[in-house]
């Protein structure tokens, strides 16, 4: 059996097993869920060690005929980028369960099942190499997330769940039409047939006329931009992130948002390169606006969780900017920044969840001086705050630096103004994060050490166990990012090479066309003289 397929569907074994559990037996259900996700992680590690980093193509491929009538196949495979994202998924899921061990008591069994189903969808999205299969995973994943927000969320959970569902669906339905049109386009070529095979489409799609390409690019990009979310499509995010239960927020911020940026790199750039050139300024500007706007809005938040949610808008802006810089550094930065954001924001949501479980409030003004009561918690919080800000030596710095470097020298963006404005986002991040940290953790201890009417206590061993692995990777990427950059380097290189080829092709074509009018113009001028 293909090891990649095994990784994708292994969580289903856990779901099936959970059916047999008595719903009263909370401990066993939690353990079963955790063990399943842990096993998935171990299996995915095998992918990591067997992965050949020198190779830019897709590895662990498996292809099986699925719907012969429509030329649709079950086709999966991973390259460096998908490998890193799959590892991020399998890494964060068990930690999310571990870090919120006692937060859920109501309908625990269904909850665990939903998390496992979600994991199947997430891994599937990153592994699918057939657009139809990709779409199935992409949409099917909405259902468990919808239930997670809707059943186990906060006060406004219903509004948040429905908004999340409708927003995401709106984008993806238009993408569906584009997928159909793309497959149909393939069948109109001589000797062609309807196909949704990504590898075939990589060579077919860029040949489309610019107008057609632009429409399809917009349909795909809209779907991904909603998921990222790119300004001004981000309004679902604060609702969904804040209302979701902690594990939901961790997965939402850690993995789901990455699907959007992953889609941009995997589909939008290589399938519609010319349209991508055309829309680069638009997406670049929106990304920069998102970076600054997200940071400014985060600054004025009174709720810690909302602050972290808005910081995602800002951080994901960097990823989009790096993607559309279309330079090797930019795309490398974007990929590593996806991982970084997954780690640091995932961890921050865990931190927020831990303090919320204790104080039952998330308002910044309810806290102050927590560091004196919870020193271990304070240390972890500090590390994740610095990681999110992008302190050199921690992971955030590497990604942001590469993105800024890549966009600075990008000929596609054409001007360094993007980097200049984006860089201000780094400073703003320091402002809102440190200010929040100061208000929550430092200062005098509240009267009697009571917060929100509850007494705080420091982290338990289990909570520490959930946070330590994240810290290890935060430092690892910060100090020696090569381990991870090596994996994604061939992907970035290949994407950029293909784009350069298309652009050079364009230049040659326009150069061939140009001489004629230029010559006549010159002769006109000389005549006038």
């Amino acid at each position, binding site marked *: 059996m293909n090891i990649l397929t095994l990784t994708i569907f292994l969580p289903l074994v856990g779901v099936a097993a959970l059916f047999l559990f008595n719903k009263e037996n909370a401990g066993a259900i939690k353990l079963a869920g955790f063990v399943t996700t842990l096993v998935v992680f171990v299996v995915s590690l095998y992918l990591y060690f067997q992965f050949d980093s020198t190779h830019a193509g897709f590895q662990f491929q498996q292809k099986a005929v*699925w*719907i*012969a*009538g*429509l030329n649709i196949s079950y086709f999966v495979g991973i390259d460096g980028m998908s490998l890193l994202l799959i590892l991020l998924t399998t890494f964060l899921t068990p930690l999310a369960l571990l870090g919120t061990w006692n937060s859920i008591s109501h309908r625990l069994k269904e909850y665990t099942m939903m998390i496992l189903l979600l994991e199947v969808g997430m891994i599937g999205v990153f592994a699918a190499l057939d657009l*139809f299969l990709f*779409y*199935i995973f992409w*949409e*099917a994943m*909405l*259902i468990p997330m*919808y*239930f997670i927000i*809707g*059943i186990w969320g906060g006060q406004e*959970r*219903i509004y948040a*769940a*429905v908004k999340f*569902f*409708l927003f995401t*669906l*709106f984008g993806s*339905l*238009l993408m*569906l*039409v584009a997928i*159909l*049109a793309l*497959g*149909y386009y393939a*069948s109109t070529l001589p000797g062609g047939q*309807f196909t949704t095979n990504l590898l075939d489409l990589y060579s077919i799609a860029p040949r489309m006329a610019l107008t057609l390409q632009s429409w399809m690019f917009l349909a795909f990009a809209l779907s991904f931009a909603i998921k990222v979310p790119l300004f001004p499509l981000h309004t679902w995010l604060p609702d969904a992130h804040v209302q979701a239960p902690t594990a939901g927020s961790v997965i939402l911020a850690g993995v789901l948002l990455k699907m959007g940026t992953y889609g941009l790199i995997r589909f939008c750039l290589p399938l519609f390169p010319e349209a991508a050139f055309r829309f680069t300024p638009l997406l670049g500007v929106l990304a920069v606006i998102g970076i600054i706007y997200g940071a400014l809005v985060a600054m004025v938040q009174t709720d810690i969780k909302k602050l972290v949610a808005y910081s995602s808008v800002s951080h994901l802006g960097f990823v989009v900017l790096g993607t559309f810089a279309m330079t090797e550094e930019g795309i490398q930065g974007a990929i590593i920044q996806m991982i970084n954001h997954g780690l640091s924001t995932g961890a921050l949501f865990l931190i927020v969840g831990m303090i919320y479980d204790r104080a039952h409030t998330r308002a910044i003004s309810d806290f102050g001086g927590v560091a004196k009561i919870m020193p271990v918690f304070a240390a972890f919080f500090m590390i994740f705050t610095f990681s999110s800000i992008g302190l050199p030596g921690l992971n955030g710095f590497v990604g942001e630096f590469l993105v800024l470097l890549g966009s600075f020298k990008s000929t596609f963006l054409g001007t360094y103004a993007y980097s200049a404005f984006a860089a201000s986002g780094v400073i703003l991040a320091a402002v809102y994060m440190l200010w929040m940290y100061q208000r929550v953790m430092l200062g005098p201890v509240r009267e009697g050490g009571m917060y929100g009417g509850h007494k705080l206590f420091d982290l338990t061993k289990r909570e520490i166990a959930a946070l330590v692995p994240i810290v290890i990777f935060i430092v690892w990427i910060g100090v020696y990012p090569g381990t991870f950059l090596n994996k994604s380097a061939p992907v970035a290189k290949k994407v950029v090479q293909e784009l350069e080829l298309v652009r050079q092709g364009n230049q040659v074509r326009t150069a061939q066309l140009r001489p004629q009018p230029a010559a006549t113009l010159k002769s006109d001028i000389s005549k006038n003289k």
Partner: protein
Amino acid sequence: MNNYLTDFWQATPIVSLAIFALLTLIVDAAGKDKPVLSYWMSLIGIVVAAGFSVASLGASTPLFNTMLAQGGYSSYCNLIFLGSAFLCIVLSRNYLERLQYHRGEFYVLIILATVGMMLMAAALDLMIIFLGIELMSICLYVLAGFIRKKEKANESSLKYFLLGAFATGFLLYGIALIYGTAGTTNLALIGKSFPQLSHNSLFMIGAGMLIVAFSFKVAAVPFHMWAPDVYEGSPTTISAFMSTGAKAAAFAVFVSVFIRTFDIGGTKLSDVLAIIAAVSMIVGNVTAIAQNNLKRMLAYSSIAHAGYMLSGIAAGNIEGETGILFYLSAYVFMNIGAFGIISWMEQQDDKKLTFDDYAGLSSQHPAVAALMAIFMFSLAGIPPFAGFFGKYYVFLAAVKAGMTWLAIIGVLTSLISVYYYLRLVVLMYFRDGQASIEEKVSAPAMAAISCAALFLIVLGLYPSLVVDIAKGFFKI
């Protein structure tokens, strides 16, 4: 004469079911007040007819001087109708007992209506289509008013009858005009001369009248007015039967006349159908949002689904035909499933039919809520359920026929539909409430609905099961 006798032998699915219908009627008349007997007899009849249909899935042969086709396409459609009738009968028993209207003739009427549907799908001649539609419709008029002491049931029955009679008028007038211009009612012969006939305005008016009559039967806008009232007033299981079996039969005729006979791709007829499809999707979905009664909501949703399937007919290509067959197979099960669960909740005097009655259902009856959620997600077209693939297929057909605008309207209206389908899921899962099913659900009914849900998942994950069979009917 000899020839006809062998033809009878070959038309076994229809003939056997008709015989069972008559036998059941006799048994019901003889053994007074034992409706259970008719219940079992009708189920056996369906199973037998289904067996004959499966056996003849392969080749299609014309029978009775090319009046009737046997096998292939018609057998496949038979299976859809029989599945719908089977589920409906299983669900009805409990429901009717609860409402104290358990009578044997109920089942006989369902079976006879099914015979009509099978005639429609097998028809190779406009006269047979007429015969089939009438046989089906007359049974349904009676069934719609089966709860005869209820005012709304009478209203629904009468309304259905009057409007249905009107549609029949259109159908006959259309057939007359087509006969007048083509000189025959045989579909194959009409199809041969279609390229010339399509320039004859009288013929086109006749074809337009057929569109009106068929659109009435599938409840497409603007011929949909009857559907919400009739579905609301009829016994819930009959609403299920009408919205699936009857609709499927009408679509079977639509396909066999407008795609298999008339090659409508690129003609005016195709544009007309595309517009009807678009308007049905918009009106059906938008109006469904405003509904508070679940049966009415499903009525409008069924109008919208008629629109989705019509876009496959408007496309007029192989993908459209196969797509509709797939869509119907999925639609029958998801819609009957939804109606079935509503029939469990329903109390006498139309109580417990609104959205709010489902608040918190998942905590009282987790299995029922989960089934309902599956049907809702499937109706909304969310993968991995079969409803998604049906939509995928018909939209693919539309894109291939150069009607990308229709596909875009289709996906945008599906987005609207998600809102009202999910409203039920929100109530069942996210809100607190005391919703519960008062009487115990019978085991066969539960099994039938669970099978329907399982079928939707299997078909959603492995659509080839149906696609490969369906595609075989259209090899040119």
